[in-house]
């Protein structure tokens, strides 16, 4: 059994099987898990916002956004020997934790995060094999590059694997 590496909010990490990756308590954020099935290299990014180009700030922290986070994760995995054309993706998170989040500037940031991830992955030609997004509860995820299993835990719900 390998080690399970923890990924924080607005952070990303890579690993090689038998190690795994986890991120705890995803709310409106999204956990994007990428895997190269041949080299068994995996990566997990915990993104918070959909789009870095909408930001005014000059300094951008890559893992915070769906677009730059996916770019950076793919780059790091390629540097380890993974190939983009073999990569597959699974995504989870993007909940709406409070119902009035639907208002004003917070227009369903969870939903927009999920859409932005799918769009960016499509641009990279990385197929999304499975997703568990939306609804109104938090998720803890564990990803194993060995099998590609993406385990999702939520409060008061049975564990599931996508």
């Amino acid at each position, binding site marked *: 059994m390998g080690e399970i590496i923890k990924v*924080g*909010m*607005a*952070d990303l990490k890579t690993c090689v099987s038998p190690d795994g990756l986890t991120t*705890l*308590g*995803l*709310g*409106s*954020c999204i956990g994007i898990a990428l895997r190269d099935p041949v080299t068994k290299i995996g990566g997990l990014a915990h993104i*918070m*916002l959909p789009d870095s180009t909408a*930001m*005014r*700030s000059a*300094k951008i*922290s890559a893992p*915070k956004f769906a677009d730059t986070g996916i770019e950076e994760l793919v780059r790091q995995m390629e540097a380890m020997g993974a190939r983009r054309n073999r990569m597959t993706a699974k995504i989870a998170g993007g*909940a709406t*934790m*409070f*119902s*009035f*989040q639907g*208002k004003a*500037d*917070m227009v369903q*940031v969870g939903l927009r995060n999920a859409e932005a991830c799918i769009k960016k992955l499509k641009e990279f030609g990385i197929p999304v094999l499975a997703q568990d997004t939306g609804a*109104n*509860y*938090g*998720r*803890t995820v564990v990803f194993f590059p060995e099998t590609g299993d993406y385990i999702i835990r939520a*409060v008061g719900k049975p564990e599931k694997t996508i």
Partner: protein
Amino acid sequence: MGGMNLENISETYMDVLKELGNIGAGNAMTALSQMLNCKVDMRVPQIKLMEFSEIGEVVGGEEQIMVGVFLGVEGDITGSMMFLVEKSSAKHLINKLMMGMASPGDEFTEMELSAMREVGNIITGAYLNSLSVITNMKIQPTPPELAVDMAGAILSVPAIKFGIFGDNILMIQSQFFDEIEIDGYFILIPDLDSYAKILGSLGMPID
């Protein structure tokens, strides 16, 4: 509000924001004490500017189950505010409020959730009211929303709001206790231009 961001905010401004948090939390505790009809003590609030990855550790782990009350702030300043308390502490508060008639076990009934929402409403109202008095600005809360979930998931909501303009989150932690210790957290999230308004109203304009 051109170049303003939380990272380059000066020590003096930070002290002012801390003091505001202190006063706000103090008033919130007084309101809580009146509501529960018992003495509630509070430690000196801690104010932290944290990176997103540190958030979970502060509240005892991302998977710690907490009750979060979230409301919008409207009026002369805009933004949002959150009050967070650990699940068993929330149960304790509700039990006090319902004169010991809370349901056994750790789940919450509809009625208890509604009571908790009201607790959140009253104490955040007291918090905002004191800010309104000090700054002489109109500050009103919107009706509260409540969630019982993992701390990380609940905190992702204010974190995302901070994430829009920076890489840090400003959090005011106030630990309070009656006969048992309860950790409570207030997170005031003014929109970026509201920071300048708050500081300006106190005679500290940002250039």
